[in-house]
């Protein structure tokens, strides 16, 4: 790329080499070794016990639950994130900065607190608890609680990916579409969406990865009932606490694999986007 042909702004090869090696060592220690440790523990007794732990009934139900929770939480945050990004990037209104701050708020809330707030709100001792109980509605220690806590934790991912991009793209194309007679929805679908689709997908993937891996918040609102309210991360904890280390790490490795797969797809998307942009430029 441009770096190669602009020597005044590039580094000599020893510098480059030292920096790359240093980064590679750090990446290995911080990211690769933990991953390797997980896989090594999972395969300590070979493939079979690891696979057996994954296809065991409680593990499978934990996977189903995790997918279900993500399948509800991710679309909610996608729609909310798109709406927020549209309002913030394409429209003018009072309180925009406040809204931006509030959307990022869940990032700075401890997962423990994000679980806690739902307990304070929906728990039997909480503000809405008695009412919910009298109507026989179960929120925490059931799917709705898991979903709510997951939505809270993954709340800003989509919006945060879209807002800077949509702000940078400006409003010209949308305004052109509107003067040509397009409705708001037509403008979004035919003009905005094609321009943001790859970033949107990347945001959704990140949101999904985080939704599947959330532990702290979900742990507070799950009743830890085997086969019913245990998501994959909680199931890992249980297996670990039952000294089923192989099983715990096998499920953990599977979850890590899903995460890696997500990241790989995301990287691929970004590469494709770069190429497309490059072709047009």
């Amino acid at each position: 790329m441009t770096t190669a042909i602009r020597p005044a702004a590039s580094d000599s090869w020893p510098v480059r080499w030292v920096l790359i090696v240093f980064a590679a060592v750090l990446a290995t220690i911080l990211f690769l070794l933990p991953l390797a440790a997980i896989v090594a523990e999972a395969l300590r007794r070979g493939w079979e016990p690891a696979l057996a732990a994954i296809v065991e009934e409680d593990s499978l139900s934990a996977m189903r639950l995790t997918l279900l929770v993500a399948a509800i939480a991710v679309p909610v945050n996608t729609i909310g994130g798109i709406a927020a990004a549209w309002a913030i990037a394409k429209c003018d209104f009072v309180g925009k900065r406040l809204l931006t701050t509030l959307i990022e708020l869940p990032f700075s809330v401890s997962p423990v607190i994000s679980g806690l707030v739902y307990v304070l709100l929906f728990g039997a001792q909480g503000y809405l608890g008695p009412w919910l109980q009298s109507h026989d509605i179960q929120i925490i220690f059931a799917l709705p609680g898991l979903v709510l806590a997951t939505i809270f934790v993954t709340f800003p991912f989509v919006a945060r990916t879209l807002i800077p991009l949509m702000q940078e793209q400006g409003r010209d194309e949308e305004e052109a579409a509107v003067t040509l007679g397009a409705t708001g929805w037509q403008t979004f679908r035919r003009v905005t969406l094609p321009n943001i689709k790859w970033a949107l997908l990347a945001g959704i993937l990140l949101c999904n990865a985080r939704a599947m891996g959330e532990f702290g918040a979900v742990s507070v609102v799950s009743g830890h009932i085997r086969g019913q309210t245990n998501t994959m991360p909680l199931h890992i904890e249980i297996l670990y606490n039952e000294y089923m280390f192989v099983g715990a790490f096998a499920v953990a490795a599977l979850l890590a694999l899903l995460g890696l797969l997500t990241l790989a797809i995301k990287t691929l998307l970004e590469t494709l986007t770069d190429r497309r942009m490059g072709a047009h430029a």
Partner: protein
Amino acid sequence: MSITTLSRRGLFAASASLAAFSARAQQAPTLLNVSYDPTREFYREFNTTFASFWAGRGNPRPGINTSHGGSGRQARSVIDGLAADVVTLALAYDIDAIAERGLIARDWQKRLPQNSSPYTSTIVFLVRRGNPKGLRDWGDLLKQGVSIITPNPKTSGGARWNYLAFWAWALRQPGGGAATAEAATAQLFRQVPVLDTGARGSTTTFVQRGQGDVLLAWENEAHLALQEFPQAGLEIVYPPLSILAEPPVTVVDQNVDRRGTRALAEAYLTHLYSEDGQRIAAKHFYRPRDTAALRAAGERFPAIQLVTIDDAFDGWATAQRLHFNDGGIFDRIYRPGR
């Protein structure tokens, strides 16, 4: 969107998903046993036995779910609305806390024999093979350079038994009193390098991570560790004196009445006292109450002197208030400047 529509939709999704998860839940009654950490293996076996027993008496085979975790956290979950039919926790105090919120009758501990504790346990030492530090009694723990692993009494029921067992020993030393016991306990915790939140965490730290010279553990937990980690090189040491831990069980009245599961729940708990129940408890290293079962277990449970919480500490409520509540003795131990 309003809260009600959200929760209704959530409810719908929840019921749909639960249906998908366990078809058996739709047909047969279910029971939720909310228990503490070390009972996992025991209840897994007991649940199967009880389900067969119950089905054998002409009832539909019940689906029994269990939830495990730190005893305090589990009690809190029930208080917050986890729909437990029965609770089988590490200490009476935690069940008292649920009873205080009106979910369980106040006199729950009198409803079943022997303080509603169908099995008991005690606190023992788990040490490295050959007991290199020569730890035989509680006093040996205070020797220079001995590193002790115990979970945090604030979050773990088992840790509270550890603490109280040591305190009971300290009181019985020549010239022992509250002041000397507090000083000795403070010394003990100065030698603790890691305070995990639960008993299982401590076991992992001791066995897997190789931390500490001695793990203060439930008797059953120590035996389980020997069984699970045969290559780890561990030994159990029984101190001459320890505490009689009585993990109690009871029915959560409000929940069983709402769900119509009282008969099943009561049968489940009663079955713990049966021959089968007692045998399985002994198999999983819980001391059975039944003398015949205890005798059958033979060498497994060495006879040591066991003090009870009522004798030594005037019951759980007092012990909790004095030692573990905020501002109690345990907090004093960690006050800075000591």
